[in-house]
């Protein structure tokens, strides 16, 4: 499905392409019925068991397993109904040019079905009881059509910010991201609809924490170091990941990730790099497999004399770190395994802000540039 996108061009399929794909799903069902076959959908299986580690591309991808969702199988019929219902809602939004949130789709399709049960009692049931159910069928439609939800016009709470020497075009506006003053450009939901006109930078620096981004932006770090500065504010959303991926894929920029030195930070790096294990189908478009972890790494604690400025790791931190050690991209990396083992041994975490111990400029004028220069990042 994924192919090298043309550099900087709009990467989204057009609305008519999207509509055609969605409609064909429904058409197939009607055709089945007309030829006397009880209707069924074929949907790639999204379980862990059907997830394959593509060693060459360093990506988790969906395997070949598919499942038949039959309307007449009573274990499946509700989910079948929900899938068809969601399909109609998305088709309608595309036809009418709406940009719903997943929460709106939940409400849009929520209603009460009244019926008489097998014992003859009046009963009623909701089309879905909570958003988990409506979200699950959105994912089913994504894998069944090969479209991302953004292509279907579904918006989300986009948290990311970006700033640096680059010019983009969005909805006809030409925007210079080096002219944002103290502020930054807020990355929207639909990154694939953006045209990236020009990028002049040596690398992309992604910082986990919003406050650190503000500080670096205020210090004009990106200008002094000729880089693009991005934050996803903690666990990154899909559009921030997609933006980072496009800068790497289409412009060949190295990507550096700066997080806290704890399992949560390592996990955030992992999300940028490979995505969530349970949502492998997204990673082909959202992941940046060559993203480099700049720090803070457990071995930095000693290297930068941060002992005493650490926080005791909780049981949850340690559990998560152990889980990370089973991720294929960490498992294959000797450096990562060393760092994770050190973390489990020392049981200490450290925050980006701890470098303030050495002065408030230490992070921007020492730690980041020197680590990059000396290739001390790990991957």
């Amino acid at each position: 499905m994924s192919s090298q996108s043309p550099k900087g061009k709009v990467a989204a399929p057009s609305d008519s392409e999207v509509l055609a794909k969605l409609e064909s799903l429904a058409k197939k069902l009607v055709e089945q019925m007309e030829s006397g076959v009880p209707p069924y959908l074929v949907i790639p299986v999204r379980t862990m068991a059907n997830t394959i580690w593509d060693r060459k591309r360093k990506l988790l991808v969906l395997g070949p397993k598919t499942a038949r969702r039959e309307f007449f199988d009573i274990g499946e019929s509700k989910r079948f109904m929900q899938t068809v219902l969601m399909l109609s809602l998305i088709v309608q939004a595309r036809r009418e040019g709406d940009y719903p949130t997943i929460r709106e789709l939940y409400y849009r399709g929520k209603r009460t079905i009244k019926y008489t049960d097998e014992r003859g009692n009046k009963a009623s049931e909701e089309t879905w009881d909570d958003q988990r159910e409506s979200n699950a069928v959105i994912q089913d439609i994504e894998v069944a059509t090969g479209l991302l939800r953004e292509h279907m016009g579904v918006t989300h709470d986009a948290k990311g910010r970006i700033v640096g020497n680059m010019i983009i075009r969005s909805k006809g506006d030409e925007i210079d991201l080096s002219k944002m003053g103290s502020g930054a450009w807020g990355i929207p939901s639909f990154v694939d609809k953006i045209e990236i006109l020009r990028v002049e930078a040596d690398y992309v620096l992604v910082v986990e924490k919003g406050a650190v981004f503000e500080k670096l932006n205020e210090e004009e770090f990106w200008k002094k170091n000729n880089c693009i500065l991005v934050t996803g504010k903690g666990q990154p959303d899909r559009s921030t990941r997609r933006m980072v991926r496009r800068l790497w894929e289409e412009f060949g920029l190295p990507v550096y990730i700066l997080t806290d030195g704890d399992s949560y930070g390592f996990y955030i790096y992992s999300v940028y790099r490979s995505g969530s294990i349970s949502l492998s189908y997204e990673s082909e478009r959202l992941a940046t497999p060559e993203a480099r972890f700049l720090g803070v790494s457990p071995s930095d604690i000693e290297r930068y004399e941060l002992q005493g400025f650490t926080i005791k790791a909780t049981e949850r931190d340690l559990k998560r770190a152990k889980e990370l050690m089973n991720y294929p991209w960490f498992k294959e990396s000797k450096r990562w395994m060393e760092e994770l083992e050190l973390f489990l041994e020392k049981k200490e975490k450290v925050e980006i802000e701890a470098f303030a111990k050495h002065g408030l400029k230490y992070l921007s004028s020492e730690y980041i540039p020197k680590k990059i220069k000396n290739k001390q990042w790990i991957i």
Partner: protein
Amino acid sequence: MSEKFRGLSPAEFFHRNREIAGFSNPARALYQAVRELVENSLDATETHGILPFIDVEIRLHEERPEWVVLRVADNGIGIPLSEVPNVFGRVFYGSKYVVRQTRGVFGLGVKMAVLYAQMTTARPIYVKSSPINSRYVGEYLLYIDISRNIPHVQKMRIKKKTKNWHGTIVKLTLEGSWVQAKKRIEDYIRRTALISPYATIRYRSPDGELIFKRVSRELPQPPEIGKYHPRGVDVEVLKELIRATNNASEVTLLEFLVKHFEGVGEKKATEFLQWSGFSPDTKLTELKLADLEVLASKMKTFPGWRRPRPLTLSPLGADLLKKGVKSILKPEFVAAVTRPPSSYSGHAFIVEAAIAYGGEIPPQDTVMLLRFANKMPLLYDEGVDVSRKIIDSIDWSIYKVKLPAPVAVVTHVCSTKIPFKGVGKEAIADVPEVEHELEIAIRDVARRLRAYLSRMEKLYEVKRKEVTIRKYMGEVSSALAYIVNRDPEEINALIEELLKKELAKKEVRPDVVSES
């Protein structure tokens, strides 16, 4: 500086330490007195093949509101008139000091009730007994002479029988807290009715009358009096048996073993004596004390003994247990099982279990448990009982029971020696052999419940399929119709047709539904 030494009679001892026997306060004492009399009545009837009719009456004393008059009447075999004074007026006297399953075993309970009555109200006990094989009826008013532990008969009247009635009537006046005890007493009576479905129990109290009519005229096989199992003896038991042997100087060890122990024939005895290094021809009088100690210790550890036989036991049987459960719990389904006999440390035991589902059983977050030991209800300390432990360890979902559910489990352990957890005698300890049998029994009835629930489920399956598809059909039709620009009715008709074909493939086969 010198101390005065003296002896104490058993009655004096228990007068001073009545809480040992459960007579610790007016509420507990009343409950305990009811239990002792009802259990004596049941032992006097069913143990002897008589269908029990028990009449329990509790009323408040007219003049003294803190006093309670308790009267229990039965149609049992009665008590030989010559034994009546000792049976009611002498601590440590009775007919139950044998190897046999009965409710009471201490020979203590009814005397404690008498003691408690006379120390709190100074009223004598009234006893009327009509022994089954006698032509006479006796009436007694009697006390216990505490310092001498002998009965003191205040009045006595012996008459020729005019009616054919046999049985015993006992009436006591004691200090008792009716209000605090009534919930427990009613619970006790109700559960007793469950475990004795062949009994009619009439219960009159200041709160009104309850009658539990017998739901069966079948009686379980009464227990026989048995011998000691060789694994369950100690030196003192051996000494007692030898002392009771006439011409002990002529009896050999081999003969002794064969005569006095359960499941020991000549072959088995010879085998044992060889194993333990005793000569079969040793005369009993040749055995020294140290030899007896070795003998007892060897008997305890010999691996070759047969299991104890259950002749001494009287389980209810699965059918009767089901009848009892149905009549008291009124469930929609019930199943019961009686396990084959088993044993632990030389004591025979039998486990029974029943399961009840639906009907008048209220849905509860945990499986309801009713426990019995030798046909006595166990009301307290459920939390530490082995049955509760087993039930809590079971994943009930594998038996298709989704808690909260209207489900009750009944367990019944019969034994010549129930392995109680403490002197409270309300919880059975987790002796591995007993736990094993209980778990098998509970899982057995649980499997039958699962089978029932499965059959019920299947009956509804096809119907449910139709209901399910129809439920979602409207949404599916209109969604598809919108996307492909067609009339929803058209799509609906397509699905309807397919559905009819689909349903025709299945046929509905109603099945036998209930075990009960």
